[in-house]
């Protein structure tokens, strides 16, 4: 009995050691993955910064003004003027649809019949 228990305990220790080492390897692998992802993140952040700067550069007012002037025949863009402000009551809303009652269903007519 004692021998059996000792063997069982020994086996359990071996299994636990095996499991612990597996966890260790998995942890190390996860850490290296994290390091790789962090490196990728910083590269992407750098790229993002460069792209934002480029976008701001391409959107600068002088360039947009030159583009508007260059493409004037096609776009016809001019600076805003004060007479381009409108009021709400100047907007032509469409007329509401006329309500035509269906044939023979007026209450008054039926009663009078």
């Amino acid at each position, binding site marked *: 009995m004692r021998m059996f228990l000792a063997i069982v305990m020994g086996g359990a220790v071996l299994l636990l050691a095996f499991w612990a080492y597996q*966890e260790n390897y998995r942890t190390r692998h996860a850490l290296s993955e994290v390091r790789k992802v962090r490196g990728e993140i910083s590269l992407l952040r*750098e790229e993002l*910064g*460069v792209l*934002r*700067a480029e976008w*701001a*550069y391409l*959107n*600068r*007012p*002088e360039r947009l*003004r030159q583009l508007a002037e260059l493409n004037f025949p096609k776009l016809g863009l001019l*600076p*805003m*003027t*004060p*007479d*381009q*402000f409108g009021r709400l009551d100047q907007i032509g809303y469409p007329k509401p649809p006329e309500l035509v009652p269906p044939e023979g269903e007026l209450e008054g007519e039926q009663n009078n019949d």
Partner: protein
Amino acid sequence: MTDHLPPKEEPRSPLRPLARILRARDKGENPDLIEKENLRRRHEVMRDKSRRRSEGRLLALGLFFIAGFVVVGARMGGLATSLPAEPRLASGAHITSARAEIVDREGRLLATNLVTQALYAHPQEMVNIPHAVSELKRIFPDIDEVKLREQFSGKRKFVWIRKTLSPEQVQQVHDIGEPGLLFATREMRLYPNGRTAAHVLGGASFGSEGVRAAEVIGVAGVERQFDERLRDPARLAEPLELSLDLTIQATTREILQGGVKLFDAKGASGIIMDIDTGEIVSMVSLPDFDPNDRPLPLTSGDPGDSPLFNRAVQGVYELGSVYKIFAVAQAMELGLINANTMIDTQGPMTWGRFRIRDFHDYGPRLTTSDVIVKSSNIGTAHIAQMIGPSRQQAFFEQMGFLKATPIELFEAASGRPLLPAKWGELASMTISYGHGLSTSPVHLAAGYATLVNGGTLVTPTLLKQSGRRMGPRVVSDGTSAEVREMLRAVVNEGTASFAKVDGYDVGGKTGSADKPKPTGGYYKNKVVATFAGAFPMSDPKYVVVVTLDEGSQFIAGENRRTAGWTAVPVTAELIRRVAPLLGVRPEIAPLAESGIREARNTQ
């Protein structure tokens, strides 16, 4: 053995107990057997005891191991069930180039960081120095070949060659194939909009430079003023929001540049300020520079000639007739006069041995309103005499004209007004029409905003504000309303008739001040032309101050230098372009001829 006996142990039973031995001898048995048995019993007891002791020790050891494993298991379980979190960056003493971005009030980028490479050399590792130097000269034409050769041939182990490189230049240097030329990584400050908002942003350069990173520090303007906050690690992700509007700033620059070209001016400045909050929506000073490539400051001559000079903030000028409204406003506030009081304008006015003259002869008397509309120096001087120098000084102190503006620029401190040596009656008279006291255009803008907004003090600021800011009261509501009427009359009937803009009720005052000679006296044909105005005058929202330095144009048979011909048309064009962008709705003009005016809120 005997000294280890514990105190409580019983006396040991003897190996040869007398009674039993004697009985055994009598029976004829061997008494040694008794001894052996007793010895055996004694040893058994000892064995039991030692076994118990070692069992206890094993148990203790086992418990320790179990405790150790339980702790490890508990920690693993804890880590497995806890939420993952980003580890915080280790803040060391290493160089970091991290700097917060600067954006305008709508979130558009004004200043950002860009990764770049820098070039350095290890002369001790270089293989072919003359070839390297000639190749570098080919790639960077502005490099000093002689100095570089000298640096490479000396004992130096580390030589910086270039601080920023474009990717193409990196490839070209790499193609030289010199092992002693190495690249360092760093971030540089980039201003995508170029010359727009150049003076406000200032510029940045490198502080301590390392191979992995270099410190970016602000050199002028907002970059220097907020250097600490921009480098604060806790606020790196939060961009610094300025009150500028990039669209308005670009438009102002374009129009001012057109004005400078048209009137052949030496320089110009334009400020648009929100009256309710004191936010500066655009501030332009010409000539300007590219903050990406900041020129060196002038070492000799007038610092005002350098493009780095901010004419809106640093430039202090005797602004001339634009100051007349402050004397009139103070006199009305003190109850000394009202808009229709007749003021003596008989010229020339003498005080001691000084003579004060008007541009034209305006007759013996004018109403206060006409003093402003026609811009009479003599009338204003009389009003100043009514006020007195000490009260005038106190009023100017309240308005903030006697100290540098609180604007958030590093250069603001050098825009300190030039005060007269002695503020006596003569000084107060000349100051009343704008000579004798030199202030900057920002002072003027803040002063005008204070007068037309109902009378509460307006402090200029470059940071985005969250809403209206009410300062302490300087003049009453009634005075403010009268002032607005007078300024409107200047545009409708007076010297600023070119400022009429369709749909926007513009009011303001012109000032054409002769430039003082550094040796004393004034130039005869050099004028700083200013127009300070606000719109829409029925409920002012924005103050516009435009100054032109030595602008002149041959119009209608004569060389015109006064503000009415130079600064005013520029301002009119500016308001026409900028008001729709600011979202100010034009008004349908009231019928002035009917004599009936619209009811107006003075608040």
